[in-house]
């Protein structure tokens, strides 16, 4: 370390400093930012080695890899920020195969002029999310674009994990007769983001549900290894996710609106914004498809987990090769729950 300190005679002024073009230039300023910000907070041996890659033993079994770019606006929102979101989002994408996530990488695109104090807050929240999840950020990259060419901070994370033996979980595996479960209230993330948008600010207690779900998944697959499908209903909400699965598995889906957990505040916010909560994003929820006879056991395990106390059985899979997702409405009629058309709300994650 003494050698390092010589390289950087003065520490970066994190309190008042701003991102400038040298922080992405490959020179000393970049090295210092990496050292005093990323390596410091992410704090793990693989990253501290200072190589352009992280080297580790390949575990036995099937591995999964997933990548997720994050462009959320605003960068800070009730219940999290782009840092924690970028960790949770990718861990969840890995976990929805039933995998145990092992490592993350992180690519930062920073805009010239962005306050270092805010960047540090983001990195610290990212580091905490990774630590809490037990999935370290072991390699990364930093680029800087000119002022006006970015929007503060964009973060792309990649995750890898390994799937325990005996699992076969895929969006294509839903079967007629399966029960469909959700791990909790829908729409919290989208409404939290909207409430903090500059042109839309309204007062609400709703916080983003952003959370890493691999622990929940581990409990679920341990109890019910027969789970056919897992997916986190992020952009496009529950509606988009179910349409994707219906299409992939060539089945129909029937939902029961009364069973779908929805907070009154989220319902109300959607009502006055003209949104349908089925299409509003979640960042800490999953849907699971399993054989109907296992549904009760699965529900019990889910409800025992802190992230899924409000889990519910919300629908069933039908034999319909047209892939329609329909819903018995709380009012007693039937409607389609279609793919989202156009853009309901841009830059939600």
């Amino acid at each position, binding site marked *: 370390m003494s050698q390092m300190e010589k390289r950087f005679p003065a520490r970066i002024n994190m309190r008042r400093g701003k991102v400038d073009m040298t922080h992405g230039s490959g020179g000393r300023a970049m090295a210092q930012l990496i050292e005093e910000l990323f390596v410091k907070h992410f704090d793990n041996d693989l990253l501290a080695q200072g190589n352009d890659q992280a080297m580790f033993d390949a575990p036995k079994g099937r591995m999964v890899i997933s990548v997720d770019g994050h462009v959320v606006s605003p960068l800070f929102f009730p219940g999290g920020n782009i840092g924690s979101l970028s960790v949770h989002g990718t861990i969840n994408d890995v976990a929805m195969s039933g995998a145990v996530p092992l490592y993350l990488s992180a690519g930062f695109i920073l805009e010239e002029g962005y306050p270092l104090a805010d960047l540090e807050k983001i990195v610290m929240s990212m580091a905490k999310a990774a630590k809490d999840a037990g999935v370290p950020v072991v390699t990364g990259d930093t680029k800087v674009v000119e002022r006006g060419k970015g929007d503060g901070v964009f973060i792309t994370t990649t995750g890898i994990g390994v799937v325990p033996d005996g699992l076969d979980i895929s969006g294509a595996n839903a079967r007629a007769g399966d029960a469909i479960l959700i791990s909790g209230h829908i729409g919290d993330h989208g409404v939290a983001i909207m409430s903090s948008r500059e042109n839309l600010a309204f007062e609400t207690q709703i916080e983003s549900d952003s959370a890493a779900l691999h622990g929940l998944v581990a409990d679920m697959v341990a109890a019910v290894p027969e789970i056919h499908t897992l997916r986190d209903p992020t952009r496009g909400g529950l509606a988009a996710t179910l349409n994707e699965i219906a299409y992939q598995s060539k089945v129909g889906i029937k939902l029961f609106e009364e069973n779908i957990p929805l907070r009154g505040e989220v319902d109300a916010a959607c009502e006055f914004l003209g949104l349908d909560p089925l299409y509003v994003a979640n960042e800490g929820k999953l849907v699971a498809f399993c054989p109907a006879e296992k549904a009760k056991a699965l529900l019990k395990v889910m409800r025992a987990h802190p992230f899924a106390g409000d889990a519910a059985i919300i629908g069933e899979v039908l034999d319909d090769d047209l892939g329609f997702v329909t819903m018995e409405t709380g*009012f007693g009629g039937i409607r*389609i729950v279609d793919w989202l*058309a156009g853009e309901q709300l841009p830059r939600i994650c």
Partner: protein
Amino acid sequence: MKYVDEFRDKDIAKKLSKEIAKEADPSRQYKLMEFCGGHTHAIFRFGVQDLMPDNVHFVHGPGCPVCVLPIPRIDNAIELAEQGAIVCTYGDMMRVPASKKNSLIKTKAAGADIRMVYSTMDALKIARDNPDSEVVFFAIGFETTTPPTAVAIKVAAAEGLQNFTVFCNHVLTPAAIQHILQSPEVRELGQVHIDGFYGPSHVSSIIGSAPYDYFAEEFQKPVVIAGFEPLDVMQSTLMLIRQINEERFEVENEYTRVVTPEGNEKAQDIVSEVFEIRRSFEWRGLGEVPYSALKIKEEFAEFDAERRFSLTEGTGTDVKGCECPAILRGVKKPTDCKLFGTVCTPDNPIGSCMVSSEGSCAAYWSYGRFRLDMAKDNAKAAAE
């Protein structure tokens, strides 16, 4: 959710469903037009049709603000944006097809500064924040959205905002309903049979129930002003069927929790202070409708985009084969259109009725197509 859940109650819906079935005379058909897209949306979103007897039919009217705006007016908005103005508009307007396969969202992607706003106050803020740019609010909608536009113009005048104008496309509901009832398709040809009307809910909160008295009497059609919640629609259906059975042609108000006979006089005053009635205005689907729209008064001329900028007299027309005009008049159903669900879907709208969730084509497609054998055939053909 208080004040909302009460109007979506399943058990009351079941009771009303039974009462309607009892009241409806099985030897006849009931064709009821809901003027407003808000009703169309509620009917489909909650599956209200499933609770109706087979002889009660909803005929969807033209009351979807983005659906009735003629293409030349959208072309004008695009023209303003291309000339460098910041054009502010409500979200649904962004995707409505204009001439030459263009739209505001495509114009935005090509570099123009077009911004989606949630209220006229957002547009005013954009004008204040960009004093060196012309900021045009692309104002659309029925009587409900007109008072906020009037307020914006008054605020701009009070603040002396030099760079804010309104491209006014506000239209009037009673004139349009009267036009439909006078159309040859209804009056003479008998192509469209309408037994009664669901009166607008939000519009009526502004204008009151009195403006409908004239055509209930003149055209001998019952009108029931109905709220936008599904129970409102069902209760109003029962009221309409009773009127029809008893051969009454009255304006009844189901939406008494909001609508009064006089309406919101304060809002009416501010509207008449800023706007005056146009001699004629083109509606998509209905053509030129006399005295059916508003323009900005001379007194506020400096805030009128049509006066400040020279706009091209538009010639844009609907795409060949698109049945939006007939659908907006209630002459055809979305499924009568050859483009419906084949090349025209909410992801790739060809006609305006496929854009907004209040448009009947979008409602049919997004909420109801599982009912349609045609849609199943289409989906099968696409899969093969």
